């Protein structure tokens, strides 16, 4: 049943269903994201028992503190301390989910171990594991969460005044700018989703094509690209986190605040 296939190039832009639960198809990218989520939760629960504030700190704790602290400093540099404390949990969760998701596609066996199945009347190879972010559904979901959070924080900080950003009929120019803001917020969802999906899926296609072309005479050829993909996975997680922070921060700044801040910086 389980088989590996390296004899022909296998690229599918959509995730393939592996099995059904009550008639709902479960795709291989969902299986991988469940696995990643479970591993992260188990790791955090198992490790947080050993955390301590005094004495000799464990290596894992130091490692995690370095990551958390540098991310926190990055967010503080964008939003300032008061707001960073509010935004930090959400945007860092994006980072900690997206980076392992990006790297999961680079694991040996991801995309290559699977079984032969029938999909849309055609006999195809269905891998069991697939990077969650190499599936447009996952990235679209993440983008929607990010943009809904942007609107929610906008309302939380500015109240109903936040709606003035979109619907302000005091003069024609502001009314038109409101329409533009509305379009730009919708396009941000698409931009978030396509940026992450495009980068990660393109990386996997690149690795597959290079490996396919050079497997017989130069098996080490994909190695530099593999390193590049590790880097791209990290940077894309960072970029998603930073863009989410910047957009949330922009939504919480009213028009008045904006001018006050620029004046303050000129003094």
């Amino acid at each position, binding site marked *: 049943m389980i088989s590996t296939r390296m004899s022909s190039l296998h690229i599918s832009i959509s995730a393939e269903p592996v099995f059904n639960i009550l008639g709902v198809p479960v795709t291989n990218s969902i299986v991988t994201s469940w696995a990643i989520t479970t591993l992260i939760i188990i790791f955090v629960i198992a490790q947080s028992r050993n955390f301590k504030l005094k004495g000799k700190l464990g290596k894992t704790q130091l490692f995690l503190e370095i990551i958390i602290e540098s991310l926190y400093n990055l967010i503080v*540099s964008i939003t300032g301390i008061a707001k960073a404390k509010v935004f930090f949990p959400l945007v860092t969760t994006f980072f900690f989910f997206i980076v392992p998701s990006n790297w999961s596609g680079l694991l040996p066996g991801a995309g290559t171990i699977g079984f032969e199945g029938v999909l849309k009347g055609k006999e195809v190879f269905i891998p069991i594991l697939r990077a969650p972010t190499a599936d447009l559904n996952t990235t679209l979901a993440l983008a929607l969460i990010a943009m809904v959070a942007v609107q929610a924080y906008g309302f939380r900080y500015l109240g109903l005044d936040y709606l003035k950003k979109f619907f302000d009929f005091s003069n024609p120019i502001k009314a038109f700018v409101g329409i533009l803001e509305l379009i730009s917020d919708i396009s941000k969802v698409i931009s978030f989703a*396509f940026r992450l999906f495009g980068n990660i899926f393109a990386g996997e296609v690149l690795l597959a094509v290079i490996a396919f072309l050079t497997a017989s005479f130069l098996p080490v050829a994909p190695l530099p690209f593999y390193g590049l993909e590790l880097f791209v996975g990290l940077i894309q997680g960072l970029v998603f986190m930073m863009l989410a922070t910047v957009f949330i921060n922009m939504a919480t700044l009213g028009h008045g605040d904006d001018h006050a801040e620029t004046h303050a910086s000129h003094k």
Partner: protein
Amino acid sequence: MADVQTLADTNSLAIGILMGFGGMGPAIGIGLIGSKAMEAIGRNPEATSKIQTNMILGLAFAEAVAIYALVVALILKFV
């Protein structure tokens, strides 16, 4: 049969042109962002980390355009 062959050829041509032109604009943009960031770091090396953060943010926006072209190309090729 001939029509199918022509269609496949046109598709490949479309993907080539799409990626060529789709990559051109972002390439110029990313080059400008990189060169200006290097200039800024040269003028004020203490601000390196701040410039780098903003540079990566700018790169992400410029790169997104190329990624749109890439996604369209992938859809044309594999769907």
